[in-house]
């Protein structure tokens, strides 16, 4: 229980303090009114898609005077459907930070941030989230290993033997079985953090539709 709690705290801290490295994996599967898992085809999902398409048309266009003449293909949604902005001081998940602010001197907090101590802590805490990740999304282990090019490893064999793929919930698509991927690390600078992980489909004939796109994601 203690480990689970630590993992959740680690995940929360990771998002709050280091959003550019937000490998947060702890979350519940979102549900919707008919009680099915998001991602499954149902009337609710189709309704949402229609609503999105409606918003992405020219209805509810708001443009500033300066951008009107330069924007050739911009369409914006109306503010009318938005809720009011949440109160940042009322989030119970931030209680830990509010109490830390009271108990840790400002100078110490600043030193921890500027010396990289907080970054090290955050990066280290990610590992505490791994057990929760595996227990919540066991099927994702297979996808993770395939993306990392470890299909020949013992871990992949173990995951296959344990039939983790069978735990995949309907509608939650993983990496297609027919795709073969190759991952390489391209360095663009002197530092070890300056790299790009490039994932390439090695059997593009299996992919539909044919494409030569890149997507840079983080």
């Amino acid at each position, binding site marked *: 229980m203690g480990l689970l709690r630590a993992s959740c705290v680690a995940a929360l801290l990771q998002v709050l*303090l*280091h*959003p*550019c490295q*937000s490998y947060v994996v702890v*979350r519940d*599967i979102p549900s919707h009114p008919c009680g099915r898992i*998001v*991602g499954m085809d149902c009337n609710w999902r189709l309704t*949402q*898609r229609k609503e*999105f*398409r409606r*918003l*992405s048309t020219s209805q509810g266009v708001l*443009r500033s005077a300066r*951008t009107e003449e*330069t924007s050739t*293909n911009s369409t*914006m949604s109306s503010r009318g459907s*938005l*809720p009011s*902005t*949440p109160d940042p001081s009322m*989030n119970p998940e*931030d209680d830990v930070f*509010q109490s830390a602010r009271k108990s840790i001197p*400002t100078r110490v*907090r600043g030193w*921890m*941030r500027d*010396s*990289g101590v*907080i970054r090290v802590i955050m990066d280290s805490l990610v590992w505490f989230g791994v057990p929760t990740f595996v227990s919540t999304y066991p099927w994702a282990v297979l*996808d993770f290993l395939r*993306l990392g090019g470890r299909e020949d490893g013992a871990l992949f064999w173990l995951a296959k033997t344990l039939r983790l793929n069978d735990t995949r919930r309907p509608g*939650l*698509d993983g*990496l*297609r079985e027919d795709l073969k*991927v190759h991952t390489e690390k*391209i360095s663009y*600078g002197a*530092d070890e*953090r*300056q790299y*790009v*992980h490039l*994932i390439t*489909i090695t059997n593009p004939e299996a992919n*539909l*539709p*044919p*494409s030569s*796109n*890149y*997507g*840079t*994601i*983080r």
Partner: protein
Amino acid sequence: MAAIPFLNAGYSQVALVGYWTYPTADVQGQIDDIAAAIRALPPSSRMTVMGHSSESHIATMAFLQERLPINRIDSFIGLSGVYDIPSHYRWEAARGVERISPMAPACGGSLGGWKKLSPTRVVSQDASDNSSFKPYRSCFPQATLLLHGNSDTTVPFTSTVQFAETVGLNWIPLPNDINHVETISDFMFGGPTREVVLDWLDDS
């Protein structure tokens, strides 16, 4: 894991960019990293850039500073981005994280520096100065989409709304109560954000 829906949808390659973080580098250094990383990719005729949270901020500033090869990039997707640093500092202060968050020092540590690295402020400041108007919309790919969850308590959705309206970019309110993490974790484990983005890419 976030690459999976794009690989399944027909993208032949997906690049995940790593870059220096504070205190090793400030935001301008991160912009330099992103620009260098994209230059290092193999030649491609079409490219989609996507960033979440601070990455969306960095990518947006890179576009505004014309550091990215706009002729090679045909679409940009910004998820739950921070676009106004002074406003977000006030938000962080209300949450109690402003002294441990790297945002303030990474953006220069002063109000002047924050404004220079705030896409919303850069555009609105320039728009108020009639002598040096610049059509900022043209800095971004024609197909640009900004998304933000209505239930985001890490970065308020008003950040995206204000920036999109200032520049004239698409923004779409997500169809469910989506928080800060879910706009990216939906790509890994399924969810409305993934559906919205893939539909939009199909249409654009």
